[in-house]
């Protein structure tokens, strides 16, 4: 279980106007091991900051992060590195989140070597397995990131995260920008992976359709706070808070707009 307890994060105002930004305020969330948790909210609601805190990229100003019984926020950097593989982050822009001068093979080999300490032979067979899991052909291994398509880059990001054999994977707006067909493929693949690999997933998104398709639990976030928690959502009527209902209305409006466009209206 990955847990954030009463976490707050404030970014100082660099303009000198004294308007510090409270990105996350007193947030408590629990990300269970074998389920999909989704955090929804509009842009600027603090979702990405929370994802960076949960993946130990940033330290919270106040509050504590636990991975099972270990308090992450109390660890020194060297101790933290040992736990690095347990929580992996998949970022929004796949192209810029992979080292452009490396080949796909080297990108996948790095966590296998540094986190799992596998030898060359073991790495090779594990890389083949990972490519099978994310449905990428083996001949891509010798290609650099810039030579791959957007969908292939996204799958490579997921494979790299899986290579670390994590307990949790956090997807920070990782599916925005994908076309509908590709998004469906990737989400279905993740759903299958979650079940077969028994990992906990946290999906950060502003897309309620993605949330409803994937989630075992949904947190609705607004202005740095969690305003609603929905366990096992079945329909949009499960959203009770006023702000959540506005998000639902926006999602339905978008869905209708797509429908009208599809019907040529």
């Amino acid at each position, binding site marked *: 279980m990955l847990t954030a307890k009463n976490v707050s994060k404030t970014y100082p105002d660099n303009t000198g106007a004294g308007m510090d930004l409270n990105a996350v305020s007193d947030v408590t969330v629990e990300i269970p091991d074998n389920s999909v948790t989704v955090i929804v909210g509009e842009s600027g609601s603090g979702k990405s900051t929370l994802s960076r805190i949960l993946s130990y990229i940033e330290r919270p100003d106040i509050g504590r992060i636990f991975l099972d019984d270990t308090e992450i926020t109390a660890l020194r950097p060297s101790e933290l590195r040992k736990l690095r593989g347990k929580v992996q982050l998949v970022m929004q822009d796949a192209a810029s989140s*992979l080292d*452009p001068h490396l080949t796909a093979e080297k990108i996948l080999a790095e966590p296998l070597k540094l986190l799992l300490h596998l030898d060359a032979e073991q790495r090779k067979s594990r890389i083949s397995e990972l490519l099978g899991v994310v449905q990428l052909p083996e001949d891509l291994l010798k290609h650099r990131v810039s030579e791959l398509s957007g969908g292939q880059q996204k799958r490579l990001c997921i494979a790299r995260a899986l290579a670390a054999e994590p307990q949790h994977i956090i997807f920070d707006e990782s599916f925005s920008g994908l076309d509908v067909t590709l998004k469906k493929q990737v989400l279905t693949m993740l759903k299958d992976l979650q079940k077969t690999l028994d990992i906990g997933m946290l999906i950060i998104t502003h897309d309620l359709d993605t949330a409803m398709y994937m989630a075992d639990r949904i947190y609705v976030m607004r202005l740095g706070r969690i305003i609603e928690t929905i366990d096992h959502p079945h329909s949009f009527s499960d959203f009770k808070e006023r702000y959540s209902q506005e998000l639902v209305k926006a999602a339905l409006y978008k869905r209708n707009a797509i429908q009208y466009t599809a019907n040529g209206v």
Partner: protein
Amino acid sequence: MLSKILRKPQAVIGLAMMLCVLICVIFAPFLAPNDPNKLDILHKFAESSDKYPLGTDDMGRCVMSRLIFGARASMCIALPTIGALAVISTLLATLCAYTGGIIDRIFVIVSNIFMALPPFLVAMTLVGAFESKAFGISISIAAAMWVWNAQVVRTYVLREKSKPYIITCRMSGCTELRIVLKHIIPNIVPHLLVLYSTGLSSVIIMISSYAFLGLGLETGTAEWGAMLVNADKLIYSHPEMLIYPGLCILFAAAGFNLFGEALRNICDPREG
């Protein structure tokens, strides 16, 4: 890599020009038809002939031999100088930019102070302080130019450091040292190649400028800059005495520039 270089005309031309200069540097004693310092007053300003392919200068010395040995004199100072510059600038700027905080702020202040001084003035001040002329020239150029290179390298490192792939590297278990050595430096190498290859041409020109100002190697040394100085009084009577060393400096500088630019396009995956 070699096949990519051979497919790019700009790289092939630059490489060929560089190789010409380097062949002259290494095989000067075998390529030069005569002793570059042998005086033959009776044959001064001789026309081109089998013995003197580009004629002789005002002291009857073989111009072609002096040009070939001139490459050796220029490059033997320029290459170690640019090597020292590259190591100092890259290490210092990468360390300061990646560490950030107070170390980076001190670096910025010190480099701003150095940048306030014109590089040529710094070099001229220092060059006389050393007994060995070649060593003095090398040290003074390195002292004058390191800050300009280091500032550029710092900008490259800061830009790379802020890219999202650095977070991914941490997620993959990289230590800070590994991020610098395996990810940041390889990603800025294409830019460094351009920086230092164009820097090499600047150093070649700077060495020649020293000679032109009378601060270069010992009088009479077969060196392109010194040959330009000796020929300045012959501009109307024998302009070729100026044109030959001038063309050599241009040729060497252009070769390194062309190759550096082409190599950047080849190495940088974002520029295909």
